[in-house]
């Protein structure tokens, strides 16, 4: 039973941040694409803005690994 809960917790740890990241990136990406159409020189800023929410899923992944491997 414990194994199921551990797996479930790990899945939640990576799944929820992944959904949150995807949602945030979809919004930022759409706005960024609009900005780039008008000002192509903003590409660097847009890359940064799109990349920022990725940290959530990376942190989620680290937590999931820690849960699964019991570090």
């Amino acid at each position: 039973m414990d194994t199921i809960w551990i797996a479930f917790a790990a899945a939640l740890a990576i799944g929820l941040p992944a959904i949150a990241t995807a949602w945030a990136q979809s919004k930022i990406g759409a706005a960024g694409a609009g900005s780039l159409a008008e000002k192509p020189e903003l590409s660097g800023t847009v890359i940064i803005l799109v990349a920022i929410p990725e940290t959530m899923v990376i942190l989620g992944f680290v937590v999931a690994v820690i849960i699964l491997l019991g570090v």
Partner: protein
Amino acid sequence: MSKVEIVGPRKLLGETLSLVRKKGNLHIEPSAVGFVDDIHKPVVHALLPDEKSLFEKIFLEEFETKMNNLFACLPDEIIRESFLAPRPIIDTVSRTLDRHLALCRSLCEKRDALQQDLLELSRYKSFLATVSTLLDKIQLTPDLDYIGITLKNEKSVDVLRDSLNCLDDASCELLTVPSEDGTLVGLIAATKDISATIRSLLSQKQMPEFTFPESIKNMTFVRKVEYLQKKIQESEAALQAVDAELAEFTKRWGPMYKAALDWVREQLSVIQASAFSFETTMCFFIYGWMPAEKVASLSASLQKNFAGSVVLEEIAIHTEDLERIPVVLQNPQYFKPFENFTRLLPLPSYTSFDPTPFIGLFFPLFFGLILGDAGYGLIILILSILTRRVARENHLFQDAISILKVCSLYAIIFGILYGEFFGDFGHTMLGMKPLFIDRRKSIIPMLYFAMAIGLAHVTLGLAMGFVSALRRHTKKEAMVKLLNIIFIFLIVGLIITFIGFFPELLMRPLIISILVLCPLLLFSGGLLAPLELLKNIGNIISYARIMAIGLTSVLLANVANQLSGLTGDIILGLIVGGIIHLIGITIGVFSSSIHSLRLHYVEFFDKFIELGGRKYRPFSSNQKKESTINLSGTDKKQHKKLKGTPSQS
């Protein structure tokens, strides 16, 4: 960068600007702020152009427009350099320009009209070429009517043969021949009394008769074919004649007009630059910035050309000037391609650091750490070497190839260290063993390793930020950066002690140190300082992506190997494995590049790069080249848009 001032008598302004343009090193400052002290402000004012200069500018602009229109009509050929000096030929050119422009426009319009005709006739070309072979086969008589049709395939021919009852009593005949575009061209020869019935039948069977232009509807079928063939031949010959005439014109007059256009553009740029000059009652002043190592050369040139009448003087740079100093990225050859990554961001300010060398050093390293497969690296290296000769003129592509080459070498090195060659293929088939770490199994050690890289990278960024703050004399900011470094090391020490790598005895002094330094951090950085510290720690954890994305890359490679093994066939296995590995390489290159770049932009540069620098734009003939490229593109488009409008001359 040096702050300079060029001074001379007003009558020598034009010549001075021409020389400055030729040297191409001076970034002319349009504002006198920071160059003229308060005492001299009332006597130094912006140069106002006189009536003669204005008329000259209007004349030259009109001249340039006409010549641009002329070159837009001429074919894209390399024009040789003229042996004539441009200045003396300007008067001659101005007399002939209108006549030549009118001639070229009329030729251009004729060429466009012929091209349009040929475009419209091109849809008949294949049919005419095919049907004429059929007409040669049969005996043409005025008693018969001929119907041309296009059929999709042999099946359509059979359907048509079955439907044509006249074939039985030999009152009509159907001939078909394949055409160049893969369809079949058919020719029905029938007596005139049944031709209308056949046409009606074709319409019912949805096999419409081939349509000819409306203008020749009254001609017979054979006459139509002959007429169109003749028209195509005539149009092609006429087009060749017009092209030859334009090519001859370009060869004969092109060099002279090109020399004149270059001269006109130089004069215009000098007139435009003179608007950024300043004057007193007797002297002119040009203010600007230029690389320090070029100052002596320009100063010597001015001395040589004007015998001491025009002088260049270096002015002391004050603290308030720092924001205005233009910035230029100058890096050794190895780092040049990486400047493209720097250009994605606004330029760094003059007091900050050029981030290019850091990207040049760490980007390939992170790429290699993430991709870390000797086989993948080898494929990328081979591809980058093979594509080196493609698109030589495309600098961006060549830079991307150079970057990929360096990155692939790092991927090979880390692939050997990880013991990966197309995933576990190297291990199972070639007996490769990891020299450093096995990414597939050692997940936690790899996580620690990625974090350690993050710690080193972020700390380096903070240290650079500390140096940068000291250079700008912002002591509080420098203190915050230093405290952040100390706090990060204390927290990392605490975590390592908690895990059990350091003795537990260290825990108490570490906690006490953190508590003691907390007020100092709040004092120097304010209430947001703890948040800044948390952000820095989050940044270090963000480097876990090196492990996470690397793990997905190696797992995908292993999946490719396992699936190819499951096929049970060498050829099929190679195809399946090859396709999945190819996908893996593509994803690997993209994700490794994007994440490496992100680690620089978000986690690293944030610590020490101060953006917002002004771009160094020297007054040079290169500006002319840029405008030439632009004009050659846009003018031709504009010409096409304006095609049909009456000639000005």
